[in-house]
Protein backbone atom coordinates (compact mmCIF):
# COMPACT_ATOMS: atom_id res chain seq x y z
CA UNK A 1 0.00 0.00 0.00
CA UNK A 2 1.29 3.44 -0.92
CA UNK A 3 0.06 6.99 -0.44
CA UNK A 4 0.98 9.75 -2.89
CA UNK A 5 0.41 13.42 -2.33
CA UNK A 6 1.68 16.81 -3.43
CA UNK A 7 2.18 19.56 -0.91
CA UNK A 8 4.16 22.79 -0.81
CA UNK A 9 6.03 21.88 -4.00
CA UNK A 10 6.99 18.41 -2.83
CA UNK A 11 5.82 15.20 -4.50
CA UNK A 12 5.78 12.61 -1.77
CA UNK A 13 5.27 8.86 -1.85
CA UNK A 14 4.80 7.00 1.39
CA UNK A 15 5.22 3.25 1.49
CA UNK A 16 2.73 2.66 4.26
CA UNK A 17 3.86 -0.70 5.57
CA UNK A 18 7.64 -0.22 5.57
CA UNK A 19 7.33 3.44 6.58
CA UNK A 20 9.66 4.50 3.73
CA UNK A 21 9.19 8.05 2.45
CA UNK A 22 10.27 9.04 -1.05
CA UNK A 23 10.47 12.55 -2.43
CA UNK A 24 10.09 12.22 -6.18
CA UNK A 25 9.92 14.32 -9.31
CA UNK A 26 6.82 14.56 -11.49
CA UNK A 27 7.82 11.71 -13.80
CA UNK A 28 8.54 9.28 -10.95
CA UNK A 29 5.27 10.34 -9.31
CA UNK A 30 3.40 9.38 -12.47
CA UNK A 31 5.30 6.13 -12.92
CA UNK A 32 4.59 5.07 -9.34
CA UNK A 33 0.92 5.97 -9.78
CA UNK A 34 0.69 3.62 -12.79
CA UNK A 35 3.14 0.95 -11.62
CA UNK A 36 0.65 -1.62 -10.45
CA UNK A 37 -1.95 -1.15 -13.16
CA UNK A 38 0.04 -0.68 -16.39
CA UNK A 39 2.76 -2.64 -18.17
CA UNK A 40 5.95 -0.73 -19.01
CA UNK A 41 5.00 -0.29 -22.72
CA UNK A 42 1.51 0.93 -21.73
CA UNK A 43 3.05 3.34 -19.26
CA UNK A 44 5.54 4.64 -21.82
CA UNK A 45 2.76 5.38 -24.31
CA UNK A 46 0.49 6.86 -21.67
CA UNK A 47 3.13 9.18 -20.25
CA UNK A 48 4.46 10.14 -23.68
CA UNK A 49 0.96 11.26 -24.66
CA UNK A 50 0.54 13.11 -21.39
CA UNK A 51 3.81 15.02 -21.48
CA UNK A 52 3.93 15.58 -25.26
CA UNK A 53 0.46 17.02 -24.83
CA UNK A 54 1.84 19.58 -22.43
CA UNK A 55 0.45 18.11 -19.23
CA UNK A 56 3.44 18.31 -16.88
CA UNK A 57 6.53 20.33 -16.03
CA UNK A 58 8.00 22.21 -18.98
CA UNK A 59 11.32 20.31 -19.09
CA UNK A 60 9.62 16.91 -19.24
CA UNK A 61 7.10 18.10 -21.81
CA UNK A 62 9.87 19.49 -24.00
CA UNK A 63 11.84 16.24 -23.73
CA UNK A 64 8.79 14.19 -24.69
CA UNK A 65 8.16 16.32 -27.76
CA UNK A 66 11.76 16.55 -28.90
CA UNK A 67 12.82 12.92 -28.57
CA UNK A 68 10.02 10.44 -27.82
CA UNK A 69 12.40 7.46 -27.82
CA UNK A 70 14.70 9.08 -25.30
CA UNK A 71 11.68 10.00 -23.18
CA UNK A 72 10.46 6.39 -23.26
CA UNK A 73 13.93 5.25 -22.20
CA UNK A 74 13.74 7.62 -19.28
CA UNK A 75 10.37 6.19 -18.28
CA UNK A 76 11.93 2.72 -18.43
CA UNK A 77 14.79 3.91 -16.22
CA UNK A 78 12.39 5.29 -13.63
CA UNK A 79 10.36 2.08 -13.85
CA UNK A 80 13.57 0.19 -13.04
CA UNK A 81 14.23 2.41 -10.02
CA UNK A 82 10.72 1.81 -8.74
CA UNK A 83 11.07 -1.94 -9.25
CA UNK A 84 14.36 -1.87 -7.32
CA UNK A 85 12.68 -0.07 -4.42
CA UNK A 86 9.85 -2.58 -4.49
CA UNK A 87 12.37 -5.43 -4.43
CA UNK A 88 14.12 -3.76 -1.48
CA UNK A 89 10.85 -3.59 0.50
CA UNK A 90 10.52 0.18 0.23
CA UNK A 91 7.58 0.45 -2.15
CA UNK A 92 4.35 -1.51 -2.48
CA UNK A 93 5.26 -3.54 0.60
CA UNK A 94 2.47 -5.97 1.38
CA UNK A 95 0.75 -5.70 4.75
CA UNK A 96 1.95 -8.52 6.97
CA UNK A 97 1.12 -6.96 10.33
CA UNK A 98 -2.41 -8.23 10.87
CA UNK A 99 -1.27 -11.38 12.73
CA UNK A 100 0.72 -9.16 15.14
CA UNK A 101 -2.34 -7.09 16.04
CA UNK A 102 -3.43 -7.98 19.51
CA UNK A 103 -0.20 -9.83 20.24
CA UNK A 104 1.37 -6.93 22.11
CA UNK A 105 -1.68 -6.37 24.29
CA UNK A 106 -1.95 -10.10 24.94
CA UNK A 107 1.72 -10.14 25.97
CA UNK A 108 1.16 -7.10 28.18
CA UNK A 109 -2.09 -8.32 29.66
CA UNK A 110 -2.74 -6.89 33.10
CA UNK A 111 0.07 -4.34 32.89
CA UNK A 112 -0.84 -0.75 33.67
CA UNK A 113 1.77 1.95 33.07
CA UNK A 114 -0.11 5.23 32.96
CA UNK A 115 -2.83 6.83 35.04
CA UNK A 116 -4.76 10.02 34.57
CA UNK A 117 -5.51 11.11 38.13
CA UNK A 118 -8.64 13.22 38.34
CA UNK A 119 -7.55 15.02 41.45
CA UNK A 120 -10.28 17.65 41.14
CA UNK A 121 -13.69 17.23 39.61
CA UNK A 122 -14.25 20.92 39.94
CA UNK A 123 -12.97 23.96 38.15
CA UNK A 124 -12.53 27.67 38.68
CA UNK A 125 -13.43 28.31 35.06
CA UNK A 126 -16.77 27.67 33.40
CA UNK A 127 -15.87 26.85 29.80
CA UNK A 128 -18.98 25.98 27.82
CA UNK A 129 -17.12 23.72 25.38
CA UNK A 130 -15.45 21.60 28.09
CA UNK A 131 -15.81 17.89 27.32
CA UNK A 132 -15.62 17.33 31.06
CA UNK A 133 -18.70 19.52 31.68
CA UNK A 134 -16.85 22.23 33.60
CA UNK A 135 -14.71 19.63 35.31
CA UNK A 136 -17.56 17.71 36.90
CA UNK A 137 -17.62 14.97 34.26
CA UNK A 138 -21.41 14.97 34.37
CA UNK A 139 -21.42 14.22 38.10
CA UNK A 140 -20.99 16.00 41.42
CA UNK A 141 -18.06 18.22 42.30
CA UNK A 142 -15.39 16.22 44.09
CA UNK A 143 -11.78 16.37 45.22
CA UNK A 144 -9.42 13.40 45.43
CA UNK A 145 -8.09 12.69 48.91
CA UNK A 146 -4.45 11.84 49.54
CA UNK A 147 -5.50 8.33 50.59
CA UNK A 148 -7.26 7.66 47.29
CA UNK A 149 -4.37 9.13 45.30
CA UNK A 150 -1.81 7.14 47.27
CA UNK A 151 -3.74 3.93 46.66
CA UNK A 152 -3.89 4.81 42.94
CA UNK A 153 -0.10 5.14 42.84
CA UNK A 154 0.30 1.85 44.69
CA UNK A 155 -2.15 0.25 42.24
CA UNK A 156 -0.02 1.54 39.37
CA UNK A 157 3.23 0.23 40.82
CA UNK A 158 1.65 -3.13 41.71
CA UNK A 159 0.29 -3.59 38.20
CA UNK A 160 3.17 -2.21 36.16
CA UNK A 161 5.09 -5.48 35.82
CA UNK A 162 8.54 -4.85 34.39
CA UNK A 163 7.67 -1.40 33.02
CA UNK A 164 10.07 1.15 34.42
CA UNK A 165 8.61 4.42 33.14
CA UNK A 166 5.26 5.15 34.78
CA UNK A 167 3.23 8.16 33.69
CA UNK A 168 0.87 10.04 35.94
CA UNK A 169 -1.11 13.05 34.76
CA UNK A 170 -2.72 15.37 37.28
CA UNK A 171 -5.93 16.26 35.57
CA UNK A 172 -9.33 17.71 36.27
CA UNK A 173 -11.29 19.90 36.30
CA UNK A 174 -8.51 22.08 37.54
CA UNK A 175 -5.91 20.00 39.39
CA UNK A 176 -4.41 23.02 41.14
CA UNK A 177 -7.64 23.31 43.13
CA UNK A 178 -6.22 20.29 44.95
CA UNK A 179 -2.56 21.28 44.84
CA UNK A 180 -1.70 20.15 48.35
CA UNK A 181 -2.72 16.61 47.50
CA UNK A 182 -0.81 16.80 44.21
CA UNK A 183 2.34 17.73 46.15
CA UNK A 184 1.79 14.99 48.70
CA UNK A 185 1.25 12.40 45.97
CA UNK A 186 4.43 13.37 44.15
CA UNK A 187 6.37 13.20 47.41
CA UNK A 188 4.91 9.76 48.06
CA UNK A 189 5.73 8.55 44.56
CA UNK A 190 9.32 9.78 44.86
CA UNK A 191 9.61 7.98 48.21
CA UNK A 192 8.74 4.61 46.66
CA UNK A 193 10.02 4.74 43.10
CA UNK A 194 13.65 3.77 43.68
CA UNK A 195 12.85 0.74 45.75
CA UNK A 196 10.15 -0.27 43.28
CA UNK A 197 12.55 0.16 40.35
CA UNK A 198 10.30 2.72 38.71
CA UNK A 199 10.62 6.16 37.22
CA UNK A 200 7.53 8.34 37.63
CA UNK A 201 6.91 10.94 34.96
CA UNK A 202 4.37 13.50 36.05
CA UNK A 203 2.35 15.81 33.86
CA UNK A 204 0.26 18.70 35.10
CA UNK A 205 -2.58 20.06 32.97
CA UNK A 206 -3.77 23.46 34.16
CA UNK A 207 -5.88 26.44 33.13
CA UNK A 208 -3.37 28.74 34.81
CA UNK A 209 -5.70 30.54 37.21
CA UNK A 210 -3.89 29.30 40.33
CA UNK A 211 -0.37 29.28 38.96
CA UNK A 212 2.05 31.03 41.31
CA UNK A 213 5.73 30.72 42.16
CA UNK A 214 5.06 27.76 44.43
CA UNK A 215 3.33 25.91 41.59
CA UNK A 216 6.03 26.88 39.12
CA UNK A 217 8.88 25.74 41.37
CA UNK A 218 7.09 22.48 42.10
CA UNK A 219 6.28 21.78 38.44
CA UNK A 220 9.78 22.63 37.27
CA UNK A 221 11.24 20.32 39.88
CA UNK A 222 8.84 17.40 39.52
CA UNK A 223 6.89 17.48 36.27
CA UNK A 224 8.20 15.86 33.13
CA UNK A 225 5.71 17.97 31.20
CA UNK A 226 3.15 20.69 31.82
CA UNK A 227 0.15 21.35 29.62
CA UNK A 228 -1.03 24.96 29.81
CA UNK A 229 -4.47 25.76 28.42
CA UNK A 230 -4.57 28.84 26.21
CA UNK A 231 -6.75 29.24 23.13
CA UNK A 232 -4.68 31.96 21.51
CA UNK A 233 -6.15 35.36 20.69
CA UNK A 234 -7.74 37.14 23.64
CA UNK A 235 -11.16 37.38 22.04
CA UNK A 236 -11.08 33.71 21.09
CA UNK A 237 -9.86 32.57 24.49
CA UNK A 238 -12.28 34.74 26.43
CA UNK A 239 -15.30 33.59 24.42
CA UNK A 240 -15.36 30.30 26.33
CA UNK A 241 -12.65 30.34 28.97
CA UNK A 242 -14.49 32.46 31.51
CA UNK A 243 -14.94 32.37 35.27
CA UNK A 244 -18.30 31.83 36.95
CA UNK A 245 -18.99 35.56 36.79
CA UNK A 246 -18.48 35.41 33.03
CA UNK A 247 -15.15 37.24 33.02
CA UNK A 248 -12.52 36.15 30.53
CA UNK A 249 -9.35 34.58 31.94
CA UNK A 250 -6.82 35.63 29.27
CA UNK A 251 -5.51 38.72 31.07
CA UNK A 252 -5.01 36.77 34.27
CA UNK A 253 -3.31 33.69 32.90
CA UNK A 254 -1.08 34.92 30.09
CA UNK A 255 1.46 36.71 32.34
CA UNK A 256 1.47 33.67 34.64
CA UNK A 257 2.12 31.31 31.73
CA UNK A 258 4.88 33.57 30.39
CA UNK A 259 6.55 33.55 33.79
CA UNK A 260 6.03 29.78 34.09
CA UNK A 261 7.58 29.02 30.70
CA UNK A 262 10.46 31.42 31.28
CA UNK A 263 11.30 29.67 34.53
CA UNK A 264 10.85 26.24 32.98
CA UNK A 265 14.28 26.66 31.42
CA UNK A 266 13.85 24.41 28.43
CA UNK A 267 11.93 21.65 30.17
CA UNK A 268 9.01 20.18 28.27
CA UNK A 269 5.74 22.11 28.14
CA UNK A 270 2.83 22.61 25.77
CA UNK A 271 0.55 25.54 25.28
CA UNK A 272 -2.61 23.66 24.49
CA UNK A 273 -5.53 25.37 22.81
CA UNK A 274 -8.89 24.27 21.49
CA UNK A 275 -10.35 25.62 18.28
CA UNK A 276 -14.05 25.60 17.46
CA UNK A 277 -16.54 26.74 14.86
CA UNK A 278 -15.75 30.26 16.04
CA UNK A 279 -12.08 30.10 15.09
CA UNK A 280 -11.38 27.58 12.34
CA UNK A 281 -8.68 30.10 11.34
CA UNK A 282 -6.70 28.83 14.33
CA UNK A 283 -3.37 29.73 12.72
CA UNK A 284 -4.03 33.26 13.96
CA UNK A 285 -4.14 31.81 17.47
CA UNK A 286 -0.88 30.00 16.90
CA UNK A 287 0.63 33.29 15.76
CA UNK A 288 -0.67 34.97 18.90
CA UNK A 289 0.95 32.29 21.04
CA UNK A 290 4.22 32.90 19.20
CA UNK A 291 3.86 36.63 19.71
CA UNK A 292 3.46 36.00 23.42
CA UNK A 293 6.76 34.10 23.41
CA UNK A 294 5.51 30.50 23.51
CA UNK A 295 7.13 28.00 21.16
CA UNK A 296 5.83 24.54 22.14
CA UNK A 297 2.31 24.52 20.83
CA UNK A 298 -0.68 22.25 20.48
CA UNK A 299 -4.06 23.27 19.07
CA UNK A 300 -6.82 20.71 19.11
CA UNK A 301 -10.17 20.58 17.33
CA UNK A 302 -13.08 20.80 19.77
CA UNK A 303 -14.66 17.46 20.64
CA UNK A 304 -18.44 17.71 21.01
CA UNK A 305 -21.71 16.48 19.51
CA UNK A 306 -22.19 17.69 15.92
CA UNK A 307 -25.22 19.82 16.83
CA UNK A 308 -23.43 21.98 19.39
CA UNK A 309 -23.07 25.63 18.35
CA UNK A 310 -19.29 25.47 18.57
CA UNK A 311 -18.95 22.15 16.65
CA UNK A 312 -16.81 22.28 13.53
CA UNK A 313 -18.93 22.18 10.36
CA UNK A 314 -18.00 20.64 7.00
CA UNK A 315 -17.16 24.14 5.75
CA UNK A 316 -14.92 24.69 8.79
CA UNK A 317 -13.06 21.45 8.08
CA UNK A 318 -11.95 22.75 4.69
CA UNK A 319 -10.67 25.94 6.32
CA UNK A 320 -8.89 23.94 9.02
CA UNK A 321 -7.16 21.73 6.46
CA UNK A 322 -5.81 24.78 4.68
CA UNK A 323 -4.73 26.21 8.05
CA UNK A 324 -2.73 23.04 8.75
CA UNK A 325 -0.91 23.51 5.44
CA UNK A 326 -0.22 27.16 6.14
CA UNK A 327 0.97 26.26 9.63
CA UNK A 328 3.53 23.85 8.16
CA UNK A 329 4.75 26.56 5.80
CA UNK A 330 5.01 29.03 8.68
CA UNK A 331 7.11 26.53 10.60
CA UNK A 332 9.55 26.22 7.71
CA UNK A 333 9.75 29.99 7.33
CA UNK A 334 10.44 30.45 11.02
CA UNK A 335 13.04 27.68 11.04
CA UNK A 336 14.88 29.38 8.19
CA UNK A 337 14.72 32.65 10.10
CA UNK A 338 16.21 31.00 13.19
CA UNK A 339 12.94 31.27 15.16
CA UNK A 340 11.66 27.69 15.20
CA UNK A 341 8.63 26.45 17.07
CA UNK A 342 7.05 23.08 17.71
CA UNK A 343 3.56 21.92 16.84
CA UNK A 344 2.66 18.78 18.75
CA UNK A 345 1.07 16.90 15.86
CA UNK A 346 3.91 17.64 13.46
CA UNK A 347 6.57 16.14 15.69
CA UNK A 348 7.08 12.94 13.78
CA UNK A 349 10.53 11.43 13.86
CA UNK A 350 10.85 9.21 10.82
CA UNK A 351 13.95 7.53 12.26
CA UNK A 352 13.04 7.37 15.92
CA UNK A 353 9.30 6.92 15.98
CA UNK A 354 7.40 4.05 17.54
CA UNK A 355 7.86 0.41 16.58
CA UNK A 356 5.17 -1.51 14.77
CA UNK A 357 3.69 -2.97 17.96
CA UNK A 358 2.90 0.50 19.23
CA UNK A 359 1.55 1.51 15.85
CA UNK A 360 -0.98 -1.28 15.61
CA UNK A 361 -1.99 -1.67 19.25
CA UNK A 362 -4.07 1.45 19.67
CA UNK A 363 -3.76 4.16 22.26
CA UNK A 364 -3.67 1.87 25.30
CA UNK A 365 -6.84 3.18 26.91
CA UNK A 366 -8.52 0.63 29.13
CA UNK A 367 -5.44 -1.58 29.21
CA UNK A 368 -2.11 0.10 29.95
CA UNK A 369 -3.74 3.49 30.51
CA UNK A 370 -6.68 4.30 32.78
CA UNK A 371 -8.28 7.26 34.45
CA UNK A 372 -8.96 7.37 38.19
CA UNK A 373 -11.89 9.40 39.55
CA UNK A 374 -11.64 11.39 42.80
CA UNK A 375 -13.27 8.47 44.61
CA UNK A 376 -11.05 5.78 43.07
CA UNK A 377 -13.08 4.34 40.22
CA UNK A 378 -11.22 3.22 37.13
CA UNK A 379 -12.27 4.17 33.60
CA UNK A 380 -10.59 3.38 30.26
CA UNK A 381 -9.48 7.00 29.93
CA UNK A 382 -10.37 10.52 31.00
CA UNK A 383 -12.90 10.88 28.18
CA UNK A 384 -14.98 7.94 29.47
CA UNK A 385 -15.22 9.23 33.02
CA UNK A 386 -18.81 9.97 33.93
CA UNK A 387 -20.24 7.24 31.71
CA UNK A 388 -21.10 4.49 34.22
CA UNK A 389 -21.32 1.87 31.48
CA UNK A 390 -17.58 2.29 31.01
CA UNK A 391 -16.51 1.83 34.61
CA UNK A 392 -13.78 -0.81 34.67
CA UNK A 393 -13.46 -1.28 38.43
CA UNK A 394 -11.66 0.57 41.18
CA UNK A 395 -8.17 1.00 42.58
CA UNK A 396 -8.79 -1.40 45.48
CA UNK A 397 -10.35 -4.34 43.64
CA UNK A 398 -8.66 -3.61 40.32
CA UNK A 399 -10.40 -4.24 37.02
CA UNK A 400 -13.60 -6.15 37.74
CA UNK A 401 -15.45 -5.45 34.50
CA UNK A 402 -13.23 -7.84 32.57
CA UNK A 403 -15.69 -8.11 29.68
CA UNK A 404 -15.32 -4.37 29.09
CA UNK A 405 -11.55 -4.55 29.36
CA UNK A 406 -11.56 -7.37 26.81
CA UNK A 407 -13.27 -5.02 24.37
CA UNK A 408 -10.41 -2.56 24.81
CA UNK A 409 -7.87 -5.39 24.61
CA UNK A 410 -9.24 -6.39 21.24
CA UNK A 411 -9.57 -2.83 19.97
CA UNK A 412 -6.69 -2.24 17.57
CA UNK A 413 -6.28 -0.81 14.12
CA UNK A 414 -6.89 -4.18 12.48
CA UNK A 415 -10.17 -4.57 14.39
CA UNK A 416 -11.57 -1.53 12.58
CA UNK A 417 -12.80 -2.39 9.11
CA UNK A 418 -12.73 1.22 7.93
CA UNK A 419 -9.01 1.44 8.75
CA UNK A 420 -7.88 -1.49 6.62
CA UNK A 421 -7.30 0.49 3.44
CA UNK A 422 -6.35 3.74 5.12
CA UNK A 423 -2.80 4.93 4.47
CA UNK A 424 -2.63 6.67 7.85
CA UNK A 425 -3.42 3.61 9.96
CA UNK A 426 0.14 3.17 11.22
CA UNK A 427 0.25 6.84 12.28
CA UNK A 428 -3.02 7.04 14.20
CA UNK A 429 -3.35 3.42 15.31
CA UNK A 430 -7.12 3.63 15.00
CA UNK A 431 -7.50 6.97 16.74
CA UNK A 432 -9.21 7.93 19.96
CA UNK A 433 -11.52 5.22 21.33
CA UNK A 434 -13.79 7.74 23.02
CA UNK A 435 -14.15 9.87 19.89
CA UNK A 436 -14.87 6.72 17.88
CA UNK A 437 -17.53 5.64 20.36
CA UNK A 438 -19.23 9.01 20.38
CA UNK A 439 -19.19 9.27 16.60
CA UNK A 440 -20.08 5.71 15.65
CA UNK A 441 -21.52 4.01 18.73
CA UNK A 442 -18.56 1.64 19.04
CA UNK A 443 -14.94 1.90 20.08
CA UNK A 444 -14.10 -0.15 16.99
CA UNK A 445 -15.86 2.37 14.76
CA UNK A 446 -14.22 5.52 13.46
CA UNK A 447 -14.61 9.27 13.91
CA UNK A 448 -14.59 10.40 10.31
CA UNK A 449 -14.08 14.12 10.88
CA UNK A 450 -11.18 13.32 13.17
CA UNK A 451 -9.71 10.97 10.54
CA UNK A 452 -9.86 13.64 7.87
CA UNK A 453 -8.01 16.16 10.00
CA UNK A 454 -5.53 13.57 11.22
CA UNK A 455 -4.62 12.60 7.67
CA UNK A 456 -4.06 16.23 6.72
CA UNK A 457 -1.83 16.70 9.77
CA UNK A 458 0.25 13.65 8.84
CA UNK A 459 0.68 14.84 5.26
CA UNK A 460 1.91 18.16 6.60
CA UNK A 461 4.23 16.46 9.09
CA UNK A 462 5.74 14.22 6.41
CA UNK A 463 6.13 17.19 4.07
CA UNK A 464 8.01 19.01 6.83
CA UNK A 465 10.35 16.02 7.18
CA UNK A 466 10.90 16.05 3.41
CA UNK A 467 11.56 19.79 3.39
CA UNK A 468 14.04 19.54 6.25
CA UNK A 469 15.82 16.63 4.56
CA UNK A 470 16.18 18.67 1.38
CA UNK A 471 17.79 21.49 3.37
CA UNK A 472 20.63 19.21 4.53
Amino acid at each position, binding site marked *: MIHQFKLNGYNIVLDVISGA*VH*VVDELAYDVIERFETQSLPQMQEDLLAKYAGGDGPADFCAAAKEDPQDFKAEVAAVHGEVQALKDAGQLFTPDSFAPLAGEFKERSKGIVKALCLHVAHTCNLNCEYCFASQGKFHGERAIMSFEVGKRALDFLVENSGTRRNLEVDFFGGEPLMNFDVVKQLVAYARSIEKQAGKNFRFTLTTNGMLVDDDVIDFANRECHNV*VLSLDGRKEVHDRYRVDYAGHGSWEKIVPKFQHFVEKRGGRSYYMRG*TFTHNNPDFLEDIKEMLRLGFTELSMEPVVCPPGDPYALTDADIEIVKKQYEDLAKLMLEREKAGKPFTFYHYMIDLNGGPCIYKRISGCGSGTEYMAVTPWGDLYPCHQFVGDEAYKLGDIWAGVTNTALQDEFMKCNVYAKKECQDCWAKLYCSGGCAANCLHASGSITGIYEQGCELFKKRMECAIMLAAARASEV
Partner: protein
Amino acid sequence: MERKHINTLSTRNLCSSAKNGGCGECQTSCQSACKTSCGIANQSCENKESK
Protein backbone atom coordinates in the same frame (compact mmCIF):
# COMPACT_ATOMS: atom_id res chain seq x y z
CA MET B 1 17.69 13.57 -19.77
CA GLU B 2 19.69 11.71 -17.09
CA ARG B 3 18.62 12.87 -13.65
CA LYS B 4 17.79 11.61 -10.18
CA HIS B 5 14.07 11.02 -9.93
CA ILE B 6 13.65 9.53 -6.47
CA ASN B 7 15.14 10.66 -3.19
CA THR B 8 14.43 8.19 -0.40
CA LEU B 9 14.50 9.71 3.09
CA SER B 10 16.06 7.92 5.99
CA THR B 11 13.28 6.23 7.96
CA ARG B 12 12.85 3.52 10.53
CA ASN B 13 11.88 0.26 8.80
CA LEU B 14 8.60 -0.71 10.40
CA CYS B 15 8.84 -4.32 9.19
CA SER B 16 12.21 -4.71 10.92
CA SER B 17 10.86 -3.12 14.08
CA ALA B 18 8.65 -6.17 14.54
CA LYS B 19 11.75 -8.19 15.47
CA ASN B 20 12.84 -6.32 18.59
CA GLY B 21 9.95 -3.96 19.24
CA GLY B 22 7.18 -4.00 21.77
CA CYS B 23 9.04 -3.19 24.99
CA GLY B 24 6.10 -1.03 26.09
CA GLU B 25 8.21 1.71 27.66
CA CYS B 26 7.12 4.46 25.31
CA GLN B 27 4.74 7.17 26.34
CA THR B 28 1.03 6.46 26.41
CA SER B 29 -0.39 8.11 23.35
CA CYS B 30 -2.77 10.63 24.84
CA GLN B 31 -0.82 11.51 27.93
CA SER B 32 1.41 14.28 26.73
CA ALA B 33 -0.61 17.10 25.25
CA CYS B 34 -3.62 16.42 23.14
CA LYS B 35 -6.01 14.55 25.45
CA THR B 36 -8.65 14.56 22.73
CA SER B 37 -7.21 13.69 19.32
CA CYS B 38 -4.97 10.74 19.73
CA GLY B 39 -2.29 9.62 17.34
CA ILE B 40 0.87 7.62 17.89
CA ALA B 41 3.09 8.96 15.15
CA ASN B 42 4.66 11.64 17.29
CA GLN B 43 5.63 9.37 20.15
CA SER B 44 9.30 8.60 20.67
CA CYS B 45 10.74 5.11 20.90
CA GLU B 46 12.30 4.46 24.30
CA ASN B 47 14.07 1.31 23.21
CA LYS B 48 17.36 2.55 21.88
CA GLU B 49 18.57 -0.97 21.08
CA SER B 50 15.70 -1.93 18.81
CA LYS B 51 16.23 0.72 16.16
